[in-house]
């Protein structure tokens, strides 16, 4: 029984991690007041570029770095359209996804038959020998540790640093931020870039670690789930983690339920991750005041210094 539970929890970490990266990234972007619907496209570009770089260089870490640059590059493209040229954010984001799906397929043409070696888990000395906990927390693959670190860094940055305060101010009221002497456009560019780099990382986790292969549209809608998670977690990093692991965990648990032969239609079971995640996040965040407090007030509205 312990074995099954440890198995489920480990699988949950794996299933949740791509969402953790992509959602935390989009959270930062949205906190600056910019809505980038191109997460799916940035994840795919990150996945294919990371995969190609790892395959060509033989270094998985090189692949990871490239995936961040690729995802970030896509986001900059979005930034140029929406921040510099004031294009509509919703339309530009959707276009970015479509562009990402097509372009990643094109880049990936030569890589559909390539396989990569697995990334070995990092076994922390002594700690990984602790029963149960050792396997759950101290012998994971390196990108999962990175996702933990990212969560810590982002929470600290948003709520404990001046930079975080400025970012949130830009998302609340760019006019006030400007009057305080902050460069709104530059800050939004940084936030958008960071969101893209994190989406790229999420894609890289899928293509390099989770299912080490490249196939077209392999993110299979996870970018859209990440977008929904940001909203349902009411723009708070800790709830992003709850949502991402809940989604991953319920997916795994419903497979276990099927495997044990419990008599529930599988079609219904496969809707569970969505239902459970939305329900739980809505319930824990149902206070309208905290939602107002955390939602960036200028989300999706273009800002131009001359207007």
């Amino acid at each position, binding site marked *: 029984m312990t*074995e*099954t539970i440890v*198995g489920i929890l480990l*699988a949950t970490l*794996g*299933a949740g991690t*791509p969402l953790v990266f992509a959602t935390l990234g989009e959270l930062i972007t949205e906190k600056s007041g910019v809505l980038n619907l191109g997460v799916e496209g940035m994840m795919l570009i990150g996945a294919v570029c990371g995969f190609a770089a790892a395959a060509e260089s033989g270094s998985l870490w090189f692949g990871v770095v490239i995936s961040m640059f690729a995802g970030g590059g896509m986001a900059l493209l979005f930034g140029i359209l929406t921040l510099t040229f004031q294009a509509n954010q919703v339309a530009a984001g959707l276009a970015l996804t479509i562009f990402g799906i097509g372009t990643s*397929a094109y880049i990936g043409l030569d890589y*559909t*038959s390539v*396989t990569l070696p*697995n990334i070995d888990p990092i076994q922390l000395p002594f700690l990984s020998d602790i029963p149960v906990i050792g396997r759950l927390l101290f012998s994971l693959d390196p990108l999962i540790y990175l996702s933990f670190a990212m969560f810590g860094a982002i929470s600290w940055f948003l709520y404990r640093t001046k930079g975080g305060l400025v970012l949130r101010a830009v998302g609340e009221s760019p006019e006030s931020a400007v009057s305080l002497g902050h460069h709104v456009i530059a800050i939004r560019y940084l936030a958008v870039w960071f969101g893209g780099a994190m989406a790229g990382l999420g894609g890289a986790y*899928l293509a390099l670690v*989770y*299912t*080490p*292969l490249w*196939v*077209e*549209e*392999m993110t*299979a*809608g*996870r970018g859209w789930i990440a977008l929904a998670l940001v909203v349902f977690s009411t723009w708070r990093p800790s709830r992003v983690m709850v949502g991402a692991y809940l989604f991953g965990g319920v*997916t*795994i648990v419903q*497979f*276990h339920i*099927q*495997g*044990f*032969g419990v*008599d529930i*239609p*599988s*079609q219904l079971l*496969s809707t569970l991750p969505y239902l459970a995640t939305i329900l739980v996040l809505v319930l824990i965040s149902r206070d309208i005041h905290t939602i107002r407090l955390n939602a960036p007030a200028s989300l999706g509205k273009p800002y131009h210094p001359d207007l």
Partner: protein
Amino acid sequence: MSKLSVRKTVSMWAAAVLGFAVSFSAFAADPLKVGFVYVSPIGDAGWTYQHDQGRKAMEGALGDKVETKFIESVPEGGEAERVIRQFASDGYDLVFTTSFGYMNPTIKVAKQFPDVVFEHATGYKTAGNVGNYVARFYEARYLTGVVAGHMTESNTAGYVAAFPIPEVLRGINAFTLGMRSVNPDAQVKVIWVNSWFDPGREREAADVLISQGADVVTHHTDSTAAVQAAEDAGVWSVGYHSDMSKYGPERHLTAATHHWGGYYTKTAREVINGAWESTRVWGGLAEGMVSIAPLNDEVPADVAKQVEGVTAAIKDGGFHPFQGPIKDQGGEVAVPEGKTMTDEELSTMEWYVEGVLGKLPK
């Protein structure tokens, strides 16, 4: 006869002769233009990859007698109709539409282009200029089941499945019957991922099956993720569509594979010779439309030999995977001794045979 009508008659004759000459020269010199509509990217393994291998085999066999073109990733529905119509109006003589959801668009376009021959895969509708073809994948599934039945130690196989439709259920049942023909204790656990293609989910489902004791994993989905999961966990895998041994170099036992080249070549040749007729084809091992990938080196020679024996028996009609006695999941006799399921019964199959675990989603 008035002057006008003489001129009319002459010009009609001229047009007829000219027309004949043009069509004759087309017949003699121009290659047969053959179009293919694919539902997904060709990639390196999977459903569309096998169709494209078939296209290439046809080109290889017929050389400059054919000229082919394919369009990938065509969504089923309205977009498909547009692509199929484009082929027809561009002067293609023969169009293969290779996904179930292309059935109605194919029939619709075929009505408007009676001179073009259409061939639709996996459906059930035909018309004067629309033929229909599908393969008996279950024959290959049965053979892979025989291999899996010998190789399993936990007597449990895991099956990552897409949607509970007759096509998929036939595969699960044939695999289970094959396993139990050599290992009566064998059981098959099925997990439905409710998607044809989502590598992440396929991987998760395979991992869960392995953690629940399956030491052979197979799949009826489109990616290679299940085979990779088995390789990583050190358990056996059985691929589908294509030989997936590249994705599981150590643990890939074999795969149930499809081969369309022979059929495409034969059909194109018939159209060239004017001998084509609309038919419904359901070809199997005997017709070379399905096969299994080379066995893993770890498979003992006597098992390989047995598989060859069963293959030969299926080919010559001496054995049918769905011949009685077959019990259903509840232990009731579903196909009595001496009976074999008809093609009609097979194509509407909606039950599990004995040995499949879990309840069939309705």
